[in-house]
């Protein structure tokens, strides 16, 4: 039995040897730069410091990275079926669970890599254009649990919250990819999950039933805790509760992926 890390290296090779991956990276770098430059040219009188602009951009950035990571998750599993390479991949002295785990790890590493690059780019460009501000005033709302902390802590926490939500959405895409073996469906439904959050939260507010607390969509907006709020309308929840709900969905998605991937026949 060779080293498990070799499997992850293989998956990484299949991600980073594709030109598409580096085009995605280009977007992650260019979008914040473009937004900052355009804002500094066209904003008249509007005053934003480097941190405020950074966090504004992070929301767009994470939607972008989530979509990219879902595309990679879809390619990673469904793509092997479409290309037919799955037949060569699964006839090696490895269990299917190991193969699937290596794929999942490589996709999460991809998302982490892009998020770190995104953090660095948004920090750098905004410091360059707007200068560095060390005063958190205006950035951290007065009723935030992080009141009194540095802007660094607030920014890092915001990125972390968004990264956690990203991992859950990517796990969802990963599940669809291995269940349906169709990358189109996996990408489409994951983007729906990503974008429909606020609409569904609105509907849940109308429903006004206690079970709405357990619906996935609102909990993807973990950053609402940072501003002293909570994500589920009418039902205040704690940060730990949201993490718990996300963890349960995360585990369910993974169990489904694993069951389907390890049990189903590879035919046709």
């Amino acid at each position, binding site marked *: 039995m060779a080293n498990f890390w070799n499997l992850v290296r293989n998956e990484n090779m299949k991600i980073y040897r594709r030109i598409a991956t580096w085009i995605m990276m280009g977007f992650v770098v260019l979008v914040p730069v473009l937004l900052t430059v355009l804002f500094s040219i066209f904003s008249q009188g509007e005053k934003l410091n480097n941190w405020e602009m950074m966090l504004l951009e992070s929301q767009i950035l994470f939607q972008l990275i989530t979509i990219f990571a879902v595309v990679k998750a879809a390619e990673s599993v469904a793509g092997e079926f479409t290309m037919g390479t799955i037949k060569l991949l699964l*006839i090696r002295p490895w269990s299917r669970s190991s193969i699937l785990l290596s794929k999942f790890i490589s996709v999460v590493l991809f998302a982490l890599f892009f998020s770190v690059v995104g953090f660095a780019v948004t920090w750098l460009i905004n410091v360059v254009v707007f200068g560095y501000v060390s005063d958190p005033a205006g950035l951290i709302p007065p009723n935030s649990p992080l009141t009194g902390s540095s802007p660094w802590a607030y920014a890092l926490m915001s990125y972390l919250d968004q990264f956690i939500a990203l991992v859950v959405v990517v796990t969802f895409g990963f599940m669809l990819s291995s269940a349906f073996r169709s990358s189109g469906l996996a990408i489409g439904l994951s983007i729906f999950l990503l974008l429909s959050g606020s609409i569904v939260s609105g509907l849940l507010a109308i429903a006004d039933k206690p079970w709405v607390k357990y619906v996935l969509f609102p909990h993807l907006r973990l950053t609402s805790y940072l501003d002293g709020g909570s994500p589920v309308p009418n039902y205040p929840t704690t940060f730990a509760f949201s993490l718990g709900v996300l963890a349960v969905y995360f585990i369910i998605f993974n169990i489904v992926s694993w069951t389907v991937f390890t049990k189903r026949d590879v035919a046709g």
Partner: protein
Amino acid sequence: MSQAPVVRLQNVSKRIGSRTIIDRLTLEVNPGEVFGFLGPNGSGKTTTIRMMVGLITMSGGDISIAGHSVKSAFPQAVSHVGAIVENPEMYKFLTGYQNLVHFARMNRGITKQRIDEVIELVGLQGRIHDKVKKYSLGMRQRLGVAQAILHRPSLLILDEPTNGLDPAGIRELRDYLRRLSREEGTAVFVSSHLLSEMELMCDRVAIIQKGQLIDIRSLRGETAETSQAMEEVLFEVDHPDAAIGVLEGRGAANVVEGGFTVTADRETIADLNRRLVMAGVRVYAIRTKIKSLEDQFLEVTGGETVG
């Protein structure tokens, strides 16, 4: 040890719903043997191969490879196997070399030298650093063989390996497989519906139809020693009707164009010839009709094309 079968299929069945795709298949392949797996389209060849490499599960029975059960000890069993299942689909966006590195990493102990050695063996030195999407089908087939033999498997499984190859490529593959079985003692399990191909390539063939094993026969060392056996012989003569008259009472003869056929043993054939010559019939040729694998195949499968 060397004569213990490399693969053993025991009562292997596959059912999907109420349909039985493979029905209690039992066979063995020995080391150093090129074993053909023959059947019409849809007879279950690919299904059987997919079960051998664990891509699909068995509904009944078991397959053991080098003594390890595919069901209960999959990684151990499959570590002895190299395979191409249907077309050799590789990662097109990677180079040939990167593809080989990819598969080499999944087995233990494949060195860089071994990768280079295999590349030379399949003759891809010149193009190995090109992207696979630029390869011709023949080159992909070679790369497919390369990934299958990287880890020196004791069993090589090839599903319809000659699909899409030109005659030169087929010949090269054939020679290569024979060398591999002779020199490295690798057992080769090859499926095909191309009978003439199998005839040239294999030591033994199994014929399946509608998921059932119909026959296993050896293709080597049986054609020469048939002096006692009855053979169907074609006589080419100038006047077939006159010739038949001469033969009267000497077995059933059929007139065909330019001569007649008769079923007889060796001695009788010589005797018949003498009589014909003495009766003034001109004999141009006497030919034994050897049944080709194709004839045998059509005989046992009843000439059906789709099972």
